[in-house]
């Protein structure tokens, strides 16, 4: 499967995506996300203390998942270079309120400077949490990635991996043929070095997102079921399960439109708007950095090219802590995905 960009698909253009989100919004103008925030006294949405620095190391990936909001895949060549990583390191060094560096992609490990970057972060900030959003299959994609579990362990990296379900049918339908089997093999390799094992101090969390136009189940219930099924069937252990709602962006937006589910899915998100989830959205304590060094409120805004509303400070080289801490977070109708039901973030449910 080619990326939307390689297909020259209209939805690879963020302005077209935003047009769909605004013009075809079932709530109309009155139902715009910012009105929902206004009604609960949260507009404009302001940041809390900066805790998470999320860096997208590039759109290159060995998989082409059907729901990917990044439109990542093997045909995407945009990756972060070492100069931009150095700018990231400057910020990580200076911003002492940061307690987490979250590395995502694409497959971040495919960036040739990935290991250098992780080691530099660890050297700079020995106590900081480093998360790698690992798609699992990358560990088996090439012999040079086979020692990633050891590398993660040596650098105290927390691994967060997508596994849509504990069956092959649902996993492969979303992430590609054979992905489930390879993912389990990779999970077993991670378990073998201690990841997900009690007392090891090595955290392995899984991410569940629905394989279609419906909301995720309750995080606690699903976690218990995943733990039992993965252990009983495959002897695989992990720490926590994060449930994440699919946001109407990029390939998932394309799926929603093509399958005739767009309006009903958006209606469901609107109907499930939860003020408590709105207060806990991840963009409030996060800055997301694109492969080219531009700054965003979150990875979703990054894909929609909605840069931080900081005039003159939208790039790493112009980092302005003060302006960032008082900015108005950019919102649009895709944000309903993070405020529906129990809430959704890169760390799972928020309520």
């Amino acid at each position, binding site marked *: 499967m080619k990326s939307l960009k390689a297909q020259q698909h209209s939805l690879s253009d963020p302005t077209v995506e935003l047009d769909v989100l605004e013009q075809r919004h079932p709530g109309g103008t009155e139902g715009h996300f910012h009105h929902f925030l206004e009604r609960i006294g949260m507009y404009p949405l302001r940041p809390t203390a900066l805790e998470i620095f999320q860096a997208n190391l590039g759109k290159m990936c060995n998989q082409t998942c059907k729901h990917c909001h990044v439109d990542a895949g093997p045909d995407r060549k945009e990756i972060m270079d070492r100069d931009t990583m150095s700018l990231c390191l400057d910020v990580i060094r200076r911003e002492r309120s940061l307690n987490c560096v979250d590395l995502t992609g694409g497959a971040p490990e495919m960036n040739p400077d990935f290991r250098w970057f992780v080691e530099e972060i660890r050297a700079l900030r020995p106590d900081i949490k480093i998360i790698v959003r690992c798609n699992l299959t990358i560990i088996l994609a090439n012999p040079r990635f086979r020692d990633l579990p050891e590398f993660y362990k040596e650098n105290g990296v927390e691994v967060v991996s997508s596994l849509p*379900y504990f069956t092959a049918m649902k996993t492969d339908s979303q992430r590609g043929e054979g992905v489930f089997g390879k993912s389990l093999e990779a999970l077993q390799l991670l378990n073998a070095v201690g990841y997900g094992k009690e007392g090891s101090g090595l955290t392995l969390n899984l991410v569940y997102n*629905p394989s*279609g136009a*419906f*909301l995720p*189940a*309750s995080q606690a*219930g*699903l976690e218990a079921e995943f733990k039992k099924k993965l252990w009983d069937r495959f002897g695989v252990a992990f720490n926590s399960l994060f449930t994440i709602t699919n946001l109407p962006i990029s390939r998932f937006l394309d799926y929603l439109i093509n399958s005739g589910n767009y309006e009903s899915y958006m209606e469901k998100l609107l109907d499930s708007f939860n003020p408590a989830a709105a207060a806990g959205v991840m963009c409030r304590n996060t800055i997301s950095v694109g492969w080219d060094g531009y700054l965003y409120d979150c990875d979703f805004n990054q894909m929609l090219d909605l840069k931080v509303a900081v005039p003159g400070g939208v790039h790493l080289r112009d980092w302005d802590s003060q302006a960032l801490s008082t900015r108005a977070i950019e919102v649009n109708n895709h944000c309903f995905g993070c405020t529906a039901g129990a809430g959704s973030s890169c760390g799972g449910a928020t309520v």
Partner: protein
Amino acid sequence: MKTYYNPEDLKKFGSIGELQKSMADKFFSYYNEVFAEGALTAREKSLIALAVAHALQCPYCIDAYTTDTLEKGCDEEQMMEAVHVAAAIRGGASLVHSTQMMNKIKEISM
């Protein structure tokens, strides 16, 4: 084309109170209590509802509880097994009446 069933009508379920409010309010209050977590989990109740929806062959209910079971974390295998439970009971309900037929055969046969 006009049809008896329109998926859009499912969203209007709440409006049945326009013609009889107090009964509708009681029904929906009861309905919500029935489906809350209890001695059975909300997930188990959703699977029962899916099976009953098929036994009753109610398109609205099938729509609603297919989505609901997925949102409760059930997979297709579990959902189809629930429908087979409905089918087995429906089939069994027909077949068990054959004992009455067999009784009658005995009664009127030499």
